[in-house]
């Protein structure tokens, strides 16, 4: 009895030593800054001026009574929902096709994941160049084909800017969905489809009851991670549009950046980011509840 307990003790000490550096870093680089951010959100902290004071809920009041905040919030939600939907549908269709074709699937897969490797700044440069209203390939092509009279300025025209940004985000993010869905599709045992055909299932039925059923866990998790990522994303949209024209593409992170570094109001910027985090926490709890329900059903 004694030997077992002392053995498990050494086991745990070694285990703790293995994870200790990571735990310390997570506390120092994530937990502490979050708490400090919450503290700053209750102060009048300025980017340059050293003096600041505790202002209770003034920053939150200011933010929550500011029309610009709600515009940015709505933009964030639209940006996330449209982008996620586009990425999921494109990635899913591509994965299904790659899984079906008899030849060259490796070749297509390699080409299709290229956007994933693009840094945000290069995404911005290359698309701004392709879409440039004077020299750009696409606006000139459309005019040449007679589809437009004048070159469209896709990233400055209020009618097009949001859709264009979403399209570029789908272009960038669909490969991640594709790759993960494809590897999930490969884990589905093929005898299930054969059995379904024997039972007289239509292809739509076997798609729904076998394919979707098998990979919904992976899709659910992808949706959680990508919702967070897209909602939080700053650089892609900021570098593409700078939040403009006239705040049409200002999402919450861009709004926070403009407040904190443009207007130098770090306290208010912190309040915005704290609200952002709380909102995401709520969304994630909902997602996880759904995922747990699916997991229980699968058992």
């Amino acid at each position, binding site marked *: 009895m004694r030997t077992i307990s002392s053995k498990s003790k050494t086991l745990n000490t070694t285990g703790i030593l293995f994870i200790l550096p990571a735990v310390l870093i997570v506390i120092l680089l994530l937990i502490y*800054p979050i708490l400090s951010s919450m503290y700053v959100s209750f102060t009048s902290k300025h980017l340059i001026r050293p003096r600041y004071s505790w202002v209770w809920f003034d920053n939150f009041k200011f933010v929550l009574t500011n029309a610009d905040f709600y515009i940015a919030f709505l933009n964030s939600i639209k940006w996330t929902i449209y982008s996620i939907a586009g990425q999921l549908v494109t990635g899913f269709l591509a994965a299904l096709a790659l899984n079906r074709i008899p030849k060259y699937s490796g070749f297509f897969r390699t080409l299709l994941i290229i956007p994933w*490797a693009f840094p945000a700044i290069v995404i911005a440069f290359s698309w701004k160049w392709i879409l440039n209203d004077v020299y750009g390939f696409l606006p000139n092509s459309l005019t040449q084909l007679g589809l437009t009279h004048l070159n469209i300025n896709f990233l400055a025209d209020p009618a097009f800017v949001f859709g264009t940004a979403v399209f570029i985000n789908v272009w960038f993010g669909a490969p991640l969905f594709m790759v993960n869905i494809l590897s999930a599709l490969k884990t589905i045992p093929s005898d299930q489809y054969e059995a379904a055909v024997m039972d007289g299932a239509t292809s739509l039925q076997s798609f729904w009851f076998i394919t979707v059923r098998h990979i919904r866990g992976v899709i659910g998790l992808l949706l959680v991670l990508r919702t967070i990522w897209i909602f939080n994303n700053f650089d892609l949209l900021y570098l593409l549009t700078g939040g403009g024209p006239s705040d049409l593409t200002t999402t919450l992170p861009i709004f926070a950046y403009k407040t904190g570094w443009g207007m130098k109001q770090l306290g208010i910027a912190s309040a915005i980011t704290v609200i952002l985090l709380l909102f995401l926490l709520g969304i994630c709890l909902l997602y996880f509840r759904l995922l747990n329900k699916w997991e229980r059903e699968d058992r």
Partner: protein
Amino acid sequence: MNNVGQSKLNIAVMYVFLSLLSLIAVFPLIWIILSSFKTSGEMANHPLAMLPKQFTFEYYSRVLHNLHFTTNIKNSLIVSLSATLVTIVVSALAAYGIVRFFPKAGKKMTKLLITTYMFPPILLAVPYSIIIIKIGLVNTWTGLVITYLSFSIPYAIWMLIGFFQTVPLEIEEAAHVDGAGKIRVFLQIVLPTVSPGVVATAIYTFINTWNEFLFALLLINTSEKMPISVALYSLTGSEILDWGEMMAASVIVIVPSIIFFMLIQKKIAGGLSDGSVK
């Protein structure tokens, strides 16, 4: 017979669909490469021409020599390699520790790691810029590397947990019977077994740190210290944009990313479906 014909048609439709999609996926890369070799007159007068009429290397030489991008590339290499090294050492230890010693609590921990993924970089940016100034690391690579660990370590641990889970316990037990210590078992037996996974994680970390923009923008303020992503952004500061330079610089930044990505593309797939998160 009808069925066979229909499935053949389906396959053909899939090939057409994939070809179109691939074209859209690859077009920006091809277009910036082609544009980077065109003269400015050609870019202005023939916006639809595919191939450059006369190849020019002028933009590349301007970007590398006059704009000193070689310095920025060196900076990015130093920052990204340091961040990757620290990340891999810390994360490999942690991932192994979680898989071997705390498998039960590990499930909760991985969920917690996903939660840290939720912290908006812009949320961390406020305290980071305050703290980094306070400890005197503003405009230093050390400061930048520290902030990069905040997103690279949770992700690397998460990826590595999936790889370590594939190592069968029996191998380790056999080694323990032979009298090898825990650290030795980890270094000499476990680590070599998962080395392809470790390499893939390292490359993924490298790409992510190489591409990072926000923290570098906020924490580095002189061009000699700037990593390449922010140096590229600084090209947009002038009144008249030099698209040729921007394209050449973009090609220089993206080529290493794409090559590395191709190397690990098989490994980054399927992290989610291997069950490392459930």
